[in-house]
């Protein structure tokens, strides 16, 4: 028998039982469609995620944290703060050592301040979680949608905001107009940093670090609007300014002066001597005390980040590159894909049972026909091949239709996702794609499933005794 005969006869047989074949194929279509969509979603999301990282240059970065035992990039970025027992202070000396390492081409010190409560423009007031400061030397860059990124000339009084803020401040799709606007940064009431008005304690001399219970308003000019990313509610400012915000200013007795005054008084009038205490405003540099939150080090090549991490760790500080972070993130996508694919797999398993059922029914119906075929010279192997082929064809057709339906659904999904991406000012679109390998894989998989589902019925057909089959009513 020729291959074309198998195709022709199988198609004829499938066509003869239109409804039953259609229902069987439909079951395969459900499985194939779900597997297609799930794989397409996961592949698309993974590709999008990786490309975002590549675009930011994050893959070339190593994040250094004071905590020596950090294990991943995410922890390094957010687990900073230098307030742990085992922490190594990130000082300028450490920074210089790291910058001197081979493969390190740049380093940005990162410092955050939680002392700003809100950003205010006109009557709009939005919550701020963090002011993030870093060296504006090109190691950390942001994609700007309007205005410019912070640069080395910026010292104080300038910020960039994310497009999230710009949207909420009423500059949606008009980011340019926000650039150059003066906004107020309203601090928390315990703020003692730069620009704070600390009232001199009147009653009790020597009062230490009393909250002044009054917000300070810092004026800032928005120089740029950056592409939004996951950390919203963050305002970016030059490192120097954030350094200043983290200053701890307080009134303290001027011990030397007070001592001298006391002695002078006692010399003049023996006995108890009550001298008015003199207070002075001192400022404590918190960075000197706690170090920076983290460093971001730029490696000369993506492939050298791992080596750089090892070298930096030798200095006793924690370090991680984005590779491992991306790996762990992609791992999540893989797991999601596995779970979703498993659901589709179950659908396909059910479809396979449908194929088995259909084929067993077909063999019962066509027993006499099989007998005639055998009498006319069909070999057992021919009969087996014919029924296996027919089952594979059911799977194949299900796969084709499944891919077509899946393609349609991903197109629809892309329309919605594109809207979502555009509203978050991402430049990419149509992230859910149906690569060729996926199409081929799905169709091949359903065909193979049909093939395996056909094995048992086909071997039953092949085992039929031709004499009995011819006599079958």
């Amino acid at each position: 028998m020729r291959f074309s005969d198998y195709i022709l006869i199988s198609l004829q047989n499938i066509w003869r039982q239109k409804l039953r074949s259609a229902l069987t194929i439909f079951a395969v279509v459900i499985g194939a469609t779900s597997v297609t969509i799930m794989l397409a979603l996961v592949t698309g999301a993974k590709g999008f995620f990786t490309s975002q990282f590549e675009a930011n240059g994050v893959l070339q970065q190593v994040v250094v944290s004071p905590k020596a035992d950090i294990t991943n990039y995410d922890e390094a970025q957010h687990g900073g703060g230098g307030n742990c027992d085992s922490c190594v202070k990130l000082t300028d000396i450490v920074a210089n050592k790291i910058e001197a390492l081979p493969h390190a081409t740049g380093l940005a010190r990162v410092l955050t301040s939680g002392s700003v409560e809100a950003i205010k423009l006109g009557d709009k007031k939005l919550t701020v979680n963090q002011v993030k400061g870093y060296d504006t030397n090109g190691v950390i860059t942001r994609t700007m949608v309007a205005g410019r990124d912070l640069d080395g000339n910026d010292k104080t009084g300038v910020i960039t905001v994310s497009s999230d803020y710009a949207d909420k401040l009423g500059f949606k799709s008009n980011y340019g107009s926000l650039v150059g606007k003066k906004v107020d940064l309203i601090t928390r009431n315990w703020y003692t940093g730069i620009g704070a008005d600390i009232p001199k304690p009147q009653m009790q001399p020597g009062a230490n670090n009393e909250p002044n219970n009054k917000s300070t308003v810092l004026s800032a000019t928005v120089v740029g609007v950056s592409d939004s990313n996951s950390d919203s509610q963050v305002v970016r400012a030059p490192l120097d300014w954030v350094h200043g915000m983290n200053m701890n200013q307080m009134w303290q007795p001027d011990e030397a002066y007070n001592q001298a005054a006391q002695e002078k008084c006692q010399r003049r009038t023996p006995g108890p001597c009550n001298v008015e205490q003199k207070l002075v405003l001192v400022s404590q540099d918190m960075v000197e005390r706690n170090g920076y939150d983290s460093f971001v080090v730029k490696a000369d090549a993506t492939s050298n980040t791992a080596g750089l991490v090892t070298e930096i760790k030798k200095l006793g500080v924690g370090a991680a590159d984005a590779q491992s972070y991306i790996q762990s993130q992609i791992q999540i996508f893989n797991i999601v894909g596995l779970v979703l694919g498993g659901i589709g797999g179950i659908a396909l398993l059910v479809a396979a049972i449908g194929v088995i059922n259909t084929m067993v029914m077909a063999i019962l119906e066509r027993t006499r026909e099989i007998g005639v075929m055998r009498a006319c010279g069909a070999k057992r192997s021919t009969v087996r091949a014919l029924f296996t082929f027919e089952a594979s064809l059911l799977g194949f057709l299900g796969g084709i239709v499944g891919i077509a339906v899946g393609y349609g659904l991903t197109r629809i999904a892309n329309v919605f996702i594109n809207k979502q991406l555009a509203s978050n000012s991402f430049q990419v679109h149509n992230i859910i794609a149906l690569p060729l390998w996926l199409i081929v894989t799905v169709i091949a998989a359903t065909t193979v499933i049909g093939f395996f589902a056909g094995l048992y019925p086909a071997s039953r057909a092949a085992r039929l005794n031709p004499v009995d089959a011819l006599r079958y009513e």
Partner: protein
Amino acid sequence: MLRFKDYAYGNKQKRFMPNILELRDLSRTYKLGDEVLNALDHVSLTVEKGQFIAIIGPSGSGKSTLANIIGGLDKPNNGTVQIDGQDLSKVRDNKLSTYRNQHIGFVFQSFNLQPHNTALENVMLPLVFSKLKRSERKKRAKECLEAVGLGERLNHKPDQLSGGQRQRVAIARALANNPSIIIADEPTGNLDSAKGAEIMDLLKSLSKQGITLIVITHDMNVAKQAQRVLEMRDGKLTERRG
């Protein structure tokens, strides 16, 4: 391979005709529960090329079993089946299938046509299992249908044909691969006597062309047209007239 037979087993007459079929001491038993049924009990038979033989006997006497073994659909428990000098009793399914395809044409009482296929497609069925090209198959099937007088009915489906016409299609199908033997199991059983006579005339004409014809029947009117009549009874074969 043809073999000239001067002293055929069980037949001492001297002839110069090749024996197409030589059955020796065939036994075929079936188990029905604890009972053993002897469908064939030491059956021997020699048939010359182009002969028309009829096998008669009551139902259950084993005549269909004999026909099935000759046709390569069944195998004996004991004894040998030589067809064209080839022993079929031991060959495997693949070879037996090829043998059926190349040497045997079956005609059944109930026609056994594929109801969803046209007359032409039905006749093409044995050709599908040979290695012929599609165009050649079509040509050959057409010739066979023309030979049975159905040249005008190529694209009719079985339900558009009369009983006699259906049996003609079945005969055309049996002819398709140029068989050396046609085995017809009650070929007129489902037909009225006039149509039955036409079918028998057709079969006889094939026999005259050199095809060995084995007809199984319990209709004496059919049997008496044969050159030899053999009777099966309780698994034993006896020559009634030869």
